């Protein structure tokens, strides 16, 4: 937990006593979310540590790894190894699935052909990762969708793996995850970029959006049926985020431009990271700037009370209704 010695000049000058706390929200977006690794590197390189992390889908996977205490470098190495070697079988499974999503649509009553996300996670996650929320070094909130209740559920205690599995259970690819008698699916259906969950819990909120945008495929104006199906989810998620931003904004918003990658392009790890490199620098710049200004403004307030060593315990579910009424204009 102790801050690393490689302090930036900025921090030396403006962060003498208490640093503003940082809440980090990592969004969903399938393979595009591999870009999250670079964002975590920024935190390590600046010697910063979020005090709370919220993640959706792939954002929950990397958020959990980081909250377990793994460094970004280690996460990167592990992910690279998994994707290049151990991942072969899974990759085959995934790529076998990616193109003929339409086939699934056509042969309607398929139920068995779905991957269990829990099994995939066993392969994917580093063995040193925490098993329970209680073992995490940074408090974590994992967003999932209650399929029948059609609402957001936020996991912040109990077994970690099943919560992550629930958060990343993309429909038509993974089978839903049942926890405590409720059936869960990908959190991206309700909250693709969960910065609102941590807004009040840190001085600075950082949100990393990897939802991407549909791109023009060649000269054809008409997207293929497959492309439009894949993109339609992106468009819906963008629309949710856009509406959310009208109500409240994170202090730092990074839109990682990983547009040309599909949800299942995990094999294009290197290209995705290369494409996300400018976003990494953008995050670094914005973070340094916001930290400097925040510290200057709130310094007296920070000096007086000691920042809490442990954030308040999180409830399993966020009081969504309260939030709704607060944002409501009569």
């Amino acid at each position: 937990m102790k801050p690393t010695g490689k302090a930036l000049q900025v921090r030396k000058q403006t962060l003498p006593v208490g640093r503003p706390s940082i809440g980090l929200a990592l969004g969903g977006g399938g393979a595009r979310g591999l870009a999250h690794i670079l964002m975590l590197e920024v935190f390590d390189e600046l010697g910063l540590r979020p005090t709370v992390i919220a993640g959706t889908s792939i954002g929950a996977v990397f958020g959990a790894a980081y909250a377990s205490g793994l460094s970004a470098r280690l996460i990167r190495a592990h992910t690279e190894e998994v994707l290049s070697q151990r991942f072969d079988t899974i990759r085959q499974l995934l790529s076998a699935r990616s193109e003929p999503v339409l086939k699934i649509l056509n042969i309607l009553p398929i139920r068995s052909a779905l991957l269990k996300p829990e099994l995939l996670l066993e392969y994917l996650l580093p063995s040193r990762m925490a098993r329970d929320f209680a073992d995490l070094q940074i408090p974590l909130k994992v967003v999932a969708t209650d399929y029948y209740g059609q609402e957001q559920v936020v996991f912040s205690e109990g077994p970690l793996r099943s919560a992550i599995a629930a958060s990343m259970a993309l429909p038509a690819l993974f089978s839903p995850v049942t926890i405590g008698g409720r059936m869960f699916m990908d959190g991206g259906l309700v909250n693709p970029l969960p910065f609102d969950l941590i807004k009040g819990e840190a001085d600075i909120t950082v949100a990393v959006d990897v939802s991407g945008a549909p791109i023009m495929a060649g000269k054809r104006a008409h997207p293929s049926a497959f492309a439009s199906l894949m993109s339609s989810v992106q468009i819906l998620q963008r629309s949710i985020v856009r509406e959310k931003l009208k109500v409240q904004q994170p202090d730092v918003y990074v839109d990682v431009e990983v547009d040309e990658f599909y949800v299942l392009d995990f094999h294009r790890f290197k290209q995705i990271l290369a494409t996300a490199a400018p976003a990494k620098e953008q995050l670094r710049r914005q973070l340094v700037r916001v930290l400097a200004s925040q510290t200057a403004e709130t310094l007296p307030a920070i000096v007086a009370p000691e920042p809490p060593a442990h954030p308040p315990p999180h409830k399993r579910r966020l009081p969504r209704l309260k939030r709704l009424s607060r944002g409501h204009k009569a």
Partner: protein
Amino acid sequence: MTAPGPRIGLALGGGSARGLAHVLMLEAFDELGVKPAIIAGTSMGAICGAAYAAGLSGAEMRAEFLALLGRRRHFVRRFAGKLRGGFSALWSVRAPAVVDNVTLFEMLLPEAMRRDFASLKIPFVAIAADFYAIEQVVLDKGPLIPALAASSSLPSLARPVVIDGRVLIDGGFVNPVPYDVIMDRADLTVAVDVTGDTKRRPGTKIPRTLDLLTGATQILFHSITREKLKSVAPDIFIRPEVGGFGALDYFRIAEIFEAAEPAKALLKHKLSQRLEKPG
């Protein structure tokens, strides 16, 4: 016809077959003797809204839809009778399983709707989504059919429609219940959300893949509307209980109409309440 009351803006949301519930909401307006000053529609809401704006009454629309969908056999006959270019006119060869909405609508929609926005009796806008720009497009001029086709072209089911060089898909993807678009042109805004009630029969039974997909899409639509309600809300928000119906349950039209009755009564009640005491 428009009494010197508040200007009413009516927003009809998208929801495919569930959008048949809009017919009853329009009947409510007829029965109260009030006319909206402006209508906005997304997807199925655009089709119903445009029909109403073209002069069809709620009752007439009910009769149209029942004649078209009431009996599956009749639909097939009518459909097949009109299909002159053969199925190739409807199904694109290059992208199989994709319906051409423009052709479909030209066949199925009544004469009154094969016109231009300018000829409508009530100002009307249709919502579509620009596929590549991921942004809302408000269609309010030109021929009606392509606009309606664009507004209701569900990706992977219907082919996108190109208008003014933009590739347009179903407006539900950016604005499932487009009340915000017309708020500045109305004193009283009524929004009808037909994506279904938020609650479904609880359970842990894993549905079929297609049901999961459509269910997931429905949740995404809900999420957009829920987030939008946090920043701006209509004066009257009606959500007919049609959540139990699938997006393609068009032939369950009688059941959908029945399920929407309570919402119709609620709309009439709320609307008359609002109109009695101004402000």
